[in-house]
């Protein structure tokens, strides 16, 4: 068995970083996956109640939010190409748009939930428990938990993107060391992926 001399340089392995991020994404998929299991069982057991409850949600806002996230996925994907092309200005510009779109999504969510609260619908509310059937209670319980957990991930994603943006501006994230931005992008696409499933399952039940 031979030996080679060891290089002692700071350890930067882009592929390792990417693999690590994908593995983390798998855990997030299974985290939401658990909730999708719960949803699928209860929808199977309460098809009519779920449909009725689904009508209470505003399809238009849901669709707008879907489009918003899809566009933001495009902008952050484009930003990774821009970084590779060493176009720092465009990279920053695209990231700013992504962040703004995320904020709009959250504002929409805030109003959506606000409308529900005004109607007396929130987890464990009297109106929910006393006046609605069991299937509807489950629907709204799942609605708040799943969109709430998703919104939490939007916030986390925004923070990650802001950190990446900051480092792009400083130059520490660049075409030779793009991992942080690429991984931020992966995380953001994950958030988009989850919504791609949430939207039809909650807003498009007919």
């Amino acid at each position, binding site marked *: *068995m*031979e*030996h*080679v*001399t*060891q290089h*002692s*340089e*700071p350890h930067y*392995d882009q*592929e*390792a970083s990417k*693999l*690590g991020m994908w*593995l*983390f994404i*798998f*855990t*997030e998929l*299974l*985290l*939401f*996956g*658990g*909730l999708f*299991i*719960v949803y699928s*069982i*209860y929808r199977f*057991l*309460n098809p009519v109640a779920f449909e009725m409850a689904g009508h209470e949600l505003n399809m238009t806002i849901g669709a707008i939010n879907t489009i918003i996230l899809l566009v933001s996925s495009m902008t952050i994907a484009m930003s990774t190409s821009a970084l590779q092309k060493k176009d720092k200005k465009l990279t920053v510009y695209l990231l700013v748009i992504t962040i703004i779109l995320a904020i709009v999504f959250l504002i929409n969510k805030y109003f959506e939930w606000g409308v529900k609260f005004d109607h007396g619908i929130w*987890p*464990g509310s009297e109106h929910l*428990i006393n006046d609605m*059937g*069991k*299937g509807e*209670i*489950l629907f709204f*319980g*799942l609605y*708040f*938990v799943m969109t709430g957990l998703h919104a939490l991930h939007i916030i986390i994603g925004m923070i990650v993107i802001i950190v990446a943006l900051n480092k792009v501006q400083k130059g520490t994230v660049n075409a030779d060391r793009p991992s942080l931005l690429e991984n931020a992008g992966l995380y953001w696409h994950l958030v988009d992926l989850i919504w791609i499933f949430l939207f039809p399952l909650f807003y498009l039940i007919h």
Partner: protein
Amino acid sequence: MQTAVQIPHDVSYLDYKGKYRGIFSWIFSTDHKRIGLLYMYSMMSLFLVGVMLGLAMKLELIAPGRTIMGPQAYNAVFTVHGVIMIFMIVIPGLPAVFGNFMLPIMIGAKDVAFPKLNLLSWYIYVLGALLVISSVLFGNGIPDTGWTFYAPYSFKTGTNLLPAIFGAFVLGFSSILTGLNFIVTIHRMRCPGMTWFKMPLFPWTLYGTAWIQLLATPVVGITLVLVALERIFGIGVFDPALGGDPILYQHLFWIYSHPAVYVMILPAMGAISEIIPTFSQKHIFGYKAIIASTLAIAFVGYFVWGHHMFTSGMSGTAQYTFSILTFIVAIPSAIKVFNWISTMHQGSINPDIPFLWAVTFIFVFMIGGFSGLVLGALATNVYVHDTAFVVAHFHFIVFGGVGFAFFGAIHYWFPKMFGRMYDKVWAKVGWAFFTIGFLTLYSPMFYLGMMGMPRRYYDYLPEFHAANILSTLGSWVMTFGLLIIIINLFRSARNGAIAPMNPWNGKTLEWTVPSPPPVENFDEVPVYGEKDGPYEY
């Protein structure tokens, strides 16, 4: 960008003086070897707490009726015992201690892929443990649901469940990050020439385990979150009054907790797969078959969870599907046992301490495994479910499996880790008392379960008295053995004879570095040639 710090190659990781001094040089260290030891010391402390809770239960059960505690206290004791032993000891188990310490060395690397994340994993572990302990010390009462937190009681109980649930969630995060780190390490940091099929078997089991940690743990994470939300808001997911199904809780819980037992046992089997070839001075029999079995167990193990739920009210279709899959998952484990025995056949056996542990591992693991077949068959399961039989089964297979493998591993790798050899006479005495005590403690429970003694009860019918006395005596003998083992190791770490680089004539890479290893493990990166490989005797 930082410049690389020149780390001397002739200073052991124990003696190395870096940026920090004293205790901080340990708790701020990103050296995988020190992190492995940090896990070991914290786990050992928690283990002793868990052992005392177990002894308390056995003392209560030494006679029918109330002995030292009433039913509420007993429920709390078995709950905390389970939470500590499962989430803080056997799940982190061998990966946290020996995976951290040995994996990089065994694949020719100087550390794991993400050393800072590794340290963070330990911090998260400690935080989770503290959260669970806080549920015991503060609040309205010690959790009494059992470590399984079954709905609906888990959202109805007045005891202090939220910190315990939150603690378990946090501990899960630690497990996930360790798994993530190990997968990337194994993919990216094997030394030149070490192809996948030249990697030793312990890293292979760590790899399979890491995937389970990654994919299964989040499911219990979200389930515990749902229980917490049920307690706080009453969302209804598990509450029949609001339309929920408590059996769905059981599904979600066991979708993690069954694969979790493979997290526990696969690295244990990996350690045995290292010990046996070394102490038979022979190449492992069926290297690829063992790898295939490892991956098969990891994969099929995802789909058998319902065997914990046969009497819950599941459909018949689900029942027999889970039963068939359970029998299938037993096959790869059997293959491993055959391969271990075949390795020993016509080998040059060195019956030293690690080998003794490995052989008794196989013995108790098989008893645990066979009893698992009884539980996996529907008709017999109905009879022994929720009895002492189940308690015997999982202690044989989990404590017997992980415990014996852990002791085998620590006696195998101790000279490498500390540069000293332990006293072998005391080690043998400890092993003997532990094994005899273990068998005496748990074997009567098979009988008691078949005779109808329920589990998780602080009391029992008078006809179960004699067997219970025997069992409790066994717990004292076992604990005595445990103390001998631990004290021997502690003393030998300081005063034992200086150990050579390769005391057992092992053929894997850890035996080519000094005992104890320098900080960056290797002076020069090893390169595997055509003819090189693990277990080449």
